[in-house]
C-alpha cells in the first residue's frame, strides 16, 4: 500500500483553492487566485504536477490523476466566477454576436468575367475593343474573309440564315473587315460578342455562344509579333510556367494558320505540381493578303495577325464547369458562386 499523504494534501489544497475562487470579490482578486494555484511557474498545483517524477513510481499515477482533477475543477470554477464578475453578456440589450444586417449581393456572369480578364490583358498590350452586327451578310462572314461559299471550309461552321444572303454571324471575324473599313492602321483590337451556329444544345455546344476576335494590322507585323503577343497573353492569363504550342492548321482568312495549345502547370495545396494535357485555346494566324486587300489596304505594305477564342470554353476550364449549358441556365445559386 502506497503512502496516501500526497493525495490528502491535494484534497486539502482543492478545498482551499475552491473557497478562494468562490470568495474572490472582483476580477483582480480572481486572477490572483489563478496565479496562486495554476500559475505556470509558481502555481501550487503546477508545482505538484512538475514534482511527480520525484515520487515513488507506484504513487505517480494516482497522484498525477488527482492533481489533474483538482486543476480542472479549479479552472471550471474560475471560469464561472469570471463570467459572473463581468456582468450580463447582453448588457443594455446589445448582443454583438447576433448576425449583421446584409444587403443583396450581385455578380457578373462568369463568361463576362472571363471576357473582362482577357480584355484587361489585351488592353495592357495596347488593344481596344471593337464591335459589329450579329446579323451580317455572306460577304462579311465568308467571302471578304477569303472563304468562298462553295468551299468545304464554309461547311465547318454550319450557318443560320435569316434571308437570302443575310445570316447570323458564325464567328466574330466579320468585325475584322468592318473595323478595317472604318479605320486606318495601326489596328489592334479585340471584339468580344455572340456568334451563332446551327448546333444542337449539348455539353460542349450551344447554337449561340461568345467568341473573342483579335486583329492586328500595321506595317512590319510579322509571325514573330504574332507568336510573341499570344504567348505573352497566355502566360499572363494562365501563369508564367504555362507552355504554349503553335500548331499548323487551316483557316481561310489566315495564312500561315495556327491552333494555339497551352499546357498549364497546376500547383496542388501540398506544394507538388502537375502538368495538364495540351488544351486547345484558339485558332489564329497571319491575316491572309486577300483579306487585307478586300479591306482596301495594300497587302504588300500591311501585314497582320488575328485570332478567335471561346471565353465560354476558357471559363469551363478555369472553373471546372463540365457542361456549357449551365452558363445559360442562369440559376442564381450558380451565378452566386462567381460573385466577387
Amino acid at each position, binding site marked *: 500500500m502506497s503512502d496516501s499523504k500526497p493525495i490528502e494534501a491535494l484534497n486539502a489544497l482543492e478545498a482551499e483553492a475552491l473557497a478562494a475562487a468562490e470568495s474572490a470579490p472582483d476580477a483582480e482578486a480572481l486572477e490572483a487566485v489563478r496565479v496562486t494555484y495554476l500559475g505556470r511557474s509558481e502555481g501550487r498545483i503546477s508545482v505538484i504536477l512538475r514534482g511527480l517524477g520525484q515520487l515513488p513510481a507506484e504513487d505517480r499515477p494516482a497522484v498525477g490523476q488527482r492533481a489533474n482533477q483538482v486543476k480542472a475543477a479549479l479552472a471550471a470554477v474560475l471560469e464561472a466566477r469570471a463570467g459572473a464578475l463581468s456582468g450580463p453578456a447582453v448588457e443594455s440589450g446589445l448582443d454583438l454576436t447576433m448576425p449583421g444586417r446584409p444587403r443583396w449581393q450581385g455578380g457578373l456572369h462568369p463568361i463576362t468575367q472571363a471576357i473582362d480578364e482577357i480584355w484587361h490583358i489585351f488592353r495592357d498590350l495596347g488593344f481596344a475593343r471593337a464591335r459589329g452586327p450579329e446579323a451580317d451578310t455572306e460577304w462579311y462572314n465568308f467571302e471578304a474573309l477569303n472563304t468562298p461559299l462553295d468551299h468545304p471550309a464554309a461547311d465547318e461552321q454550319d450557318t443560320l440564315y435569316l434571308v437570302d444572303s443575310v445570316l447570323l454571324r458564325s464567328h466574330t471575324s466579320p468585325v475584322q473587315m468592318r473595323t478595317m473599313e472604318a479605320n486606318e492602321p495601326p489596328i489592334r483590337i479585340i471584339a468580344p460578342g455572340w456568334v451563332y451556329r*446551327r448546333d444542337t444544345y449539348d455539353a460542349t455546344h450551344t447554337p449561340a455562344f461568345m467568341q473573342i476576335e483579335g486583329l492586328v494590322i500595321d506595317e512590319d507585323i510579322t509571325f514573330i509579333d504574332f507568336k510573341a503577343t499570344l504567348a505573352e497573353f497566355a502566360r499572363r492569363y494562365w501563369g508564367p510556367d504555362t507552355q504554349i504550342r503553335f*500548331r499548323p492548321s487551316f483557316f481561310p482568312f489566315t495564312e500561315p494558320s495556327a491552333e494555339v495549345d497551352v499546357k498549364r502547370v497546376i500547383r496542388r495545396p501540398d506544394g507538388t505540381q502537375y502538368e495538364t494535357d495540351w488544351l486547345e485555346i484558339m485558332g489564329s494566324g497571319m491575316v491572309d493578303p486577300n483579306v487585307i486587300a478586300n479591306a482596301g489596304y495594300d497587302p504588300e505594305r500591311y501585314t497582320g495577325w488575328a485570332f478567335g477564342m471561346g471565353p465560354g470554353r476558357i471559363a469551363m476550364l478555369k472553373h471546372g464547369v463540365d457542361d456549357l449549358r449551365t452558363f445559360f441556365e442562369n440559376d442564381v445559386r450558380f451565378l452566386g458562386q462567381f460573385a466577387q
Partner: protein
Amino acid sequence: MNVSTRWLKDIVPGLQGTPEEISEHLALRGAPVEGITSPGDELGDIIIGRVVKAVQHPNADRLRVCEVDNGTETVQIVCGAPVVKDGAFYPLAPVGAVLPGDFKIKKSKIRGEVSQGMLCSAKELGLGDDQDGILELVGDFTPGASFVDSVGLDDATLDVEVTANRGDLLSHVGVARELASEGEGRVVLPELPGAPEIAPEYATASPEVEHNGVSVRIDAPDLCSRYLGAVIRGVKVGPSPAWLQERLRGAGSRPINNVVDATNYVLLELGQPMHAFDLNRLDRQSVIVRRAAADERTFVTLDDETREVTPDMLLICDGAGPVAIAGVMGGQNSEVDDDTTDVLLECALFEPKSTRATRRSLTMSTDASYRYERGVDPEGMQRAMDRCIRVILATAGGELTGPILDCCPGPFESTVVDLRLARIERVLGIPFESGYVESLIAPLGFAVEGETDGVLHVRVPGFRSYDVTREVDLIEEVARTHGFDKFPETLGPQRPSAVPDHPLFQLEDRLRSALVGHGLFEAQTPAFCPEGEGDVQVANPLTTTEPFMRRAIMPSLIRRVEYNLARGNRDVRLFELGTSFRKAGSGEAPLEESHLAAVMTGRREPPHWSREDQPLEAWDIKALLTDTAQRTYGPSASVEPGEPLSDTLESGSSFLVRSSSGEVVGHAGRVAASACDVPVWAGELWAFELTLPAHPPEPEPVTVTPLPHFPASERDLALLVPDSVTAGSVTEAIQRYAGRDLEHLEIFDLYKGDGVPEGLRSLAFRLRFRSPTRTLKDKQVDKSVAVVLKRLEEDLGVEARG
C-alpha cells in the same frame, strides 16, 4: 481520315516510332490525330483453331460436332455453321474468352454434346456483317497462335483530322509524304502480292475515245476534264485475299469483294476515287459523261436509295441512261456482283465545286465525293489506274484487254509560283536562304526550277494545285516545315491602336458594375425566341420551338426567373445586356439595338432578424430604372408613369423612360400574369428594359458645385392634395414658385385616413432654402412659402393641412 500505321510504315521505309509518336509528328505538321484504335482491340482472347474433323451432331440436324486443335490439345466444339471444313483454320474463342459486346464463352452442353469454346463468324468478331458462316482463314496458320497477330489485326488506326484545304492528305501516300519529308525516308508504293507488272497503252482522244466496241465520251468538259476507262475481262468476283482485307481493315474500311476492295484500296492509298462498272450491264458498252437531262428525275444509287436528280448534276451514263452520279456514288443498275465477269474501271477527274453542290443537294457524302470536293491529284490518275488494275488482276484474275480509254478534253498543266525571299522575311520575321527554302519544300513535291534576284520559281505538284496557288501559300509551307516552334517569341515595340475603345462597351461596363452594386446578377441568354416575341425569323432553325430572334430581352429573362422559381429560388434578381433584332426592309439585314433588361422578384432586402420581410414594389424598379437611365442618357433622362411598350408588362403600374431628347427609350413595371408562369407562392415580378444608344457620348466630365458658405433654412409643408392631383404636379409647382433659393425638395410622408377628408391625401414636403450669397432671413423664406401655398391652392386646389 483513318490511317493504318502498318500501311504508312510500308510506304515510308524506315519510318520509326509508336503510333503516339507518329501522331505527335502529324499534329505539328497540321494534321492532328483525334484518336488511335486497333481493329483487334477487343479480340485479344481469340486464337487460331484447326478443325481436325467435323461430324453431324447426333441429336440436331443443323449442328456439327467438331474436334478442334487449339495448339495444346484437341477439344470438342459444337458449331451451328452450315459448312465446316476438315483441316481448315478458324478463329477460336476458347472457354473464358470475352467477345466484343462483353459476351463470355463458357463450357456448355448443347443437345447432350460438350462444347468447349466457339468457332466465330466475322460478325461475332466485329469484323463484318457476314454471320452465315464461321470465318474461314485462308493461308497457313499455327493452331493456338493469337488470332490478332496471325491475321494482321495488330495494326493501329490513326484518326487523322484533315483540314479543308488539304485534300492531298486524304490518302496514305499523302500522309506518308508529310512524315517522309521530315527524315531520310521517301515514299514508295508497297508490293502488291501476286500482281503482274503491266505496261498498258493509253488511247487518248477527245471528246470521245473508242476501242473494240467500248467507248467513253465527255459532253461536259467543264465538269470532267479527264476520264480513264480500263476494260478487264474474265474476272472472278469473290472475297479478297487476307493481305488486302488486312489493309482495308487497318484503314477502318470493310472488305466487300475483290473488285470493290481493289477500288477502295487505291482510294485509301493514293486518294484517287475509282469505280468499277459491270461492263456487260452498260448499254452499248458505252460511257457518256454529261449533265442530267431535263426528264431524268430520279436515280437509284448503290445503297438502294432513290435520289432526286437535277439538270446541273453531272452523271455517268451508258447508251440508255444514268449509271452513276459522277464523283458521288454508282448506280444499282451497273453494280459489280458475284456474276460479273467483265469490268469497266473508271478513274476520273471531276470538278470540286460541282461535286460539292451535287452531294450537298443530295444531302449525302461519300469517300469519293469527300475527296473530289477537296481536289484529287490530276497528275496521279495513270498511276492510280495502273495500280487498281494490278490489284484486280492479282485478286480477281482476268485480263486487261485493249488500251486504256483516255478521254482528256482538259489536260492538266501545272503552275509555277514565284516566291520572294524578301517577302518570306517580311511575313515571317526572319531571313531564309534559298537553299534552305528548297530543302524544306522539295520533299513535299515542290520543285524549285530556278532563282532570279531573290525570287524562287516553284513548280507546284498536281496534288497541291488546289491549295497552293499564291506566294503566301508557299510561305506557309516554309513556316510549317521550318517548324512554328523554331520562331522566336520576342515581343517587339508596337504602335498604339488607332481604333478607339468602343464607347458602347464602356457604357456596358459602367451599367454592369452599377447593377451588380444594386445586388443583381448578370445573366446571359441566347437571342432565340418563340414566335410572337420577334419578327426576325431564322430560315433554317434546328429547333422549331425558338425559330425567331428576340425583339426584347425581358421575356428571355422572365423564363430564367421562372427556371429559378421552379428550383425553389425565391429571391431572383437578374439583368442582361444583349441585342434586340427588328425586321428591316425585305431582304435586308435586321435592325439591331443593344438593350439592357432586368427582372426581379422576392424580397427587397435579405431577411434579417431586425426587420420584417418586404416584397419588391414599383418604387424599387422605378429607382433602379431611373438610376440606369441617367447613367445611360445623362441626368436629364426622366422616368414617368405611362402605358407599357409591350403586353409583357401590366397596364396601370408601369413607367416609361425618356432620353434627354424626349424619345421613349424604355419601360418598367410589373410583369403581367399572362407573361409569366410562376408558382403560387412566388412574389410579383418587376422588370425594366432600356434601349442603349448605338454610340453613347462620353460621360460629361463632372464640374464641381462649390460647397455652400451660408446656412440653410428648412420648412416642412403638410399638404392636403386631392386624389385627382399627382405628387408630380405638386412638386413641379413648388419648384416653379419657391424661387431660386429652393435648394432641395423631398416628399417625406404620405398619409390617408383619420383626420384627412375623403378624396384627399396628406403629402408632407420638406423644402430646403439656401442662398449662395447670404444668410436667408426667416421672413424671406416664409414669404417664398406663402407664395408657394397660394399658387398651390389657386392652381391645384391643394391646401396646407391644419
